[in-house]
């Protein structure tokens, strides 16, 4: 077919025209693409660059080793144990079920463990290690390591886990650590990214919580490059963290162990203070609990046992518990009166067994009365009427001020949880708190440490130490941080006439060492170590008129929770005071019977530095004491603890 040339030209022109139109459109589109490229790569480049970095670089935190806690002699109280675990990686294992079955013949694995592992492994990427078993014994780990060729994809790993080798002895003081909870996060204004690590452990109570910042250390980090599915390609940089600082406590773990053992079976608290420095040598609260259980995650059954126990093992009675100090408060009232000049050490008061103030009758514990008593006799025999009398002369506000001076009603800055303020009431306080006027009866109750007055065993111990030393020492719990000594908290002598202090100390000596003293049975025979003290028995209920008419109930006849608290405060040796002790036995009955013997044993143990010899005790009691010493449930030091046998 031959086409006319005219046709050819027409066709050619038409194609050229259309080609230009289409070509222009295509160029236009290419221009659009170029414009879009410019927009993304030039204008928005920064934004995309950032997204790319996020894609690429993953920050992995390296948790620091937590600071250790030692007692004053360097025995470990809180340690970091190696925690061995077995992990499995699917892509290396091949048939996970087969490998797990082989593993099972080597280490104890329950069906639950296997199921959980298989479930977890299905959920994760094939290269993510999944924990099969945690907290393995060293032997088990060794068996797995030896059989490694038969266990593809199985890897032993090691991490650090907090442990408390002394078990329950320091549970209340040191506390325990646990994984960060949402509640912790909401409560803490702590931006430390470590807290975001799953299962990272922080201090929950006690020193672990209060000294968290010292103990935690600083996280290191490792920048790793990951690909789209999260597989680690390589480490870009690594900064090692700083381990937490080590704490040395003022406490003596052997003494603490003795005290806890001595309190075994009772709901009680003891605080032993070094009179010269304020060092807390023992801070015991009984019964206690095993903090290791909390670190590992306590079972609900175990937890229920702790919370439902009427002796409240979880409460730290030594600093957090407050009790009416009872007669142990009488030194405060006496000193307030002496300092105010409303009476002298030799003035006497007539005690007929009761006193009438306002329209009420206030009874002395001794129904027949003590007759004429001066300061010395009133403390020795714990006459209540004497204090009813002088308290009316001195007034509550001056009593309260004296109490504060001696450390009652003062919150000491020691790193423990829920350190109690106690209470030393004043007129203004009652007005503010109860909206009622202070009445004379309140003063009378307060004068013998009842009514509104509340003090913790720690405060009572400090009070005794101040009385004994005549200085305003404050309690110290941390002796050194990373080997650097903490300062002793003392500014100088107490602002109290030394003669008055001596008179009170003399009376306290008589409490323990004169035949008429309320704690004579609990005296120390060894002359160089003789103890001075004061008993206290504080009511936890009102004695009604009817009861009084029938005769006051004997404590033994009452249900446990309605019995009186037994208290004792004391210091020794009398000639050269070194230690002060306070003892509170909840619902223990009388202070002289329940609390004073404990105080004596603890003081002797502290002064001897070992189990006190029997000749320190009165000869008539030695047989009994020997039996009691043998029965003490002390921690056995011959047997290494199960934790240390692992390492």
């Amino acid at each position: 077919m031959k086409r006319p040339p005219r046709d050819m030209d027409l066709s050619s022109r038409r194609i050229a025209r259309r080609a230009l139109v289409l070509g222009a459109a295509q160029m236009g589109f290419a221009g659009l693409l170029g414009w879009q490229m410019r927009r993304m790569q030039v204008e928005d480049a920064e934004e995309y660059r950032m997204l790319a970095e996020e894609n690429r670089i993953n920050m992995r935190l390296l948790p620091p080793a937590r600071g250790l806690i030692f007692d004053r002699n360097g025995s470990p109280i809180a340690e970091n144990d190696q925690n061995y675990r077995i992990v499995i990686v699917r892509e290396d294992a091949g048939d996970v079920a087969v490998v797990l079955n082989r593993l099972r013949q080597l280490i104890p694995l329950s069906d639950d463990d296997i199921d959980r592992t298989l479930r977890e492994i299905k959920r994760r990427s094939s290269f993510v290690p999944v924990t099969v078993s945690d907290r393995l014994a060293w032997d088990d780990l060794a068996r797995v390591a030896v059989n490694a060729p038969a266990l593809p994809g199985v890897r032993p790993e090691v991490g650090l886990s907090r442990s408390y080798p002394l078990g329950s002895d320091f549970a209340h003081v040191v506390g325990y650590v646990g994984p960060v909870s949402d509640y912790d996060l909401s409560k803490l204004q702590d931006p430390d990214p470590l807290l975001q690590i799953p299962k990272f452990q922080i201090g929950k109570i006690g020193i672990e919580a209060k000294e968290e910042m010292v103990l935690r250390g600083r996280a290191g980090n490792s920048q790793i490059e990951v690909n789209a599915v999260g597989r680690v390609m390589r480490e870009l940089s690594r900064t090692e963290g700083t381990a937490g600082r080590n704490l040395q406590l003022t406490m003596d773990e052997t003494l603490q162990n003795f005290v806890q053992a001595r309190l075994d079976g009772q709901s009680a608290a003891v605080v032993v203070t070094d009179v010269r420095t304020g060092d807390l040598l023992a801070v015991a609260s009984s019964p206690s609990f095993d903090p290791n259980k909390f670190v590992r995650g306590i079972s609900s059954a175990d937890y229920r046992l702790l919370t439902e126990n009427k002796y409240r093992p979880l409460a730290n009675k030594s600093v957090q518990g407050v009790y009416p100090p009872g007669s142990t408060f009488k030194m405060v009232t006496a000193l307030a009166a002496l300092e105010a000049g409303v009476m002298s050490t030799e003035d006497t008061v007539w005690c007929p067994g009761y006193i009438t103030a306002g329209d009420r009758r206030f009874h002395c514990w001794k129904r027949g009365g003590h007759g004429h008593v001066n300061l010395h006799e009133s403390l020795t025999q714990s006459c209540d009427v004497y204090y009813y009398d002088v308290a009316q002369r001195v007034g509550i506000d001056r009593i309260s001020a004296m109490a504060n001076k001696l450390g009652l009603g003062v919150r000491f800055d020691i790193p423990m949880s829920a350190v109690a303020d106690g209470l030393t009431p004043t007129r203004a306080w009652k007005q503010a708190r109860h909206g009622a006027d202070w009445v004379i009866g309140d003063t009378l109750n307060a004068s013998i440490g009842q009514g509104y007055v509340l003090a913790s065993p720690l405060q009572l111990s400090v009070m005794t130490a101040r009385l004994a030393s005549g200085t305003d020492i404050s309690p110290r719990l941390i002796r050194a941080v990373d080997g650097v000594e903490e300062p002793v908290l003392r500014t100088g002598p107490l602002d109290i006439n030394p003669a008055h202090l001596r008179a009170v100390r003399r009376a306290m000596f008589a409490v323990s060492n004169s035949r008429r003293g309320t704690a004579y049975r609990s005296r120390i025979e060894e002359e160089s170590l003789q103890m001075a003290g004061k008993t206290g028995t504080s009511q936890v209920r009102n004695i009604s008129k009817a009861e009084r008419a029938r005769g006051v109930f004997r404590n033994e006849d009452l249900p446990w929770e309605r019995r009186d608290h037994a208290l004792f405060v004391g210091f020794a040796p009398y000639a050269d005071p070194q230690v002060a002790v306070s003892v509170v036995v909840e619902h223990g009955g009388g202070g002289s019977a329940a609390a004073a013997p404990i105080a004596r044993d603890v003081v002797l143990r502290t002064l001897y530095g070992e189990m006190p010899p029997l000749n320190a005790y009165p000869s008539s009691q030695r047989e009994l004491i020997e039996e009691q010493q043998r029965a003490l449930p002390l921690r056995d030091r011959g047997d290494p603890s199960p934790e240390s046998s692992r390492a």
Partner: protein
Amino acid sequence: MSYLEYALKTVPKGPRKVLYLNWPLVLLLTAIAAIGFTMLYSVAGGAFTPWVEPQAKRFALGMMAMFVIAMVPIWFWRNMAVMGYLVALILLVWVEVAGTVGMGAQRWIDLGFMRLQPSELMKVTLVMMLAAYYDWLDLKKTSHPLWVLIPVLLILVPVALVLKQPDLGTSILLVVGGGFVMFLAGVHWLYFAVVTAGGGSLIWAVLTSRGTDWQLLKDYQFRRIDTFLDPSSDPLGAGYHITQSKIALGSGGITGRGFMQGTQSRLNFLPEKHTDFIFTTLAEEFGFIGAASLLALYTLVLVFCISSAITNKDRFGSLLTLGIAGTFFLFFAVNMSMVMGLAPVVGVPLPLVSYGGSAMLVLLVAFGLVQSAHVHKPR
């Protein structure tokens, strides 16, 4: 034009033909392929295997094929157009049948040294067929409905087969590429206006049908549309590719991160980084300068083809050149739009750069035809 007409004109003969080749176009194609090798070397982590070596071999083979085809007179290729179209169509049907019978989802034919995808072949043979059709067709009948229907059917039959595979990218290329040839041949504007309007309203109808009783697409298909319109709505699901690809592209900046320094592509954030998404690697490592340069090279290919076609009085040669240029345009335009998030993810490779035997060979064969038309154009 008939053979006689060609003979009347002065057409170079013998080895002298080599001098009449469109050498700038050869250089452009080589430069683009070289960029491709560089990028394949980079995504392989600095190695010639597994991609650069076979790709280079195929390029060498393709260049040889291009020269051989260029030496053969264009009228021979015009006479082969129908045959080529039918062969490609038969192969398409064959892989479709064989694919369903026993070869799994295989869409290619093993030629021993490479795997040929008939759908790739069809991209060229369809353009050839249409060019030959309009060369044969009386100029006056171009816009007659009957004579418009025939090329439409020529396009739709292979499209239907390819869509069944399913290969949306190739289908679009075939439809639009065929449409380009028809437009260039001079089919009346109105047809295109009607088809465009019809397509637009169909899309509108589909979108508005969502959630109604007469919903035209399945829910998951709508979700895919959502993902395209807003990739961030599903960053780790279907929108993942688009999001990651955009991050790679954008993070390149002006000068790029440097050769072999593209973290996105090297760290597996990118899917198909050696095939459909290779442009992102280029853009990440060489930045805006690299990406814009490649775009400029592609555009220059278009310019040389169009100028060759405009100066060609031979209707078949001219239409063929423009049709192949149009298909080439579609390749890179769709691919780049896709990786920049301007178009949904459809499987269209970046021409001469993406790893893949069929596409590379077929494109070089197509440019062999363009060269043949250039060499043998009436002067």
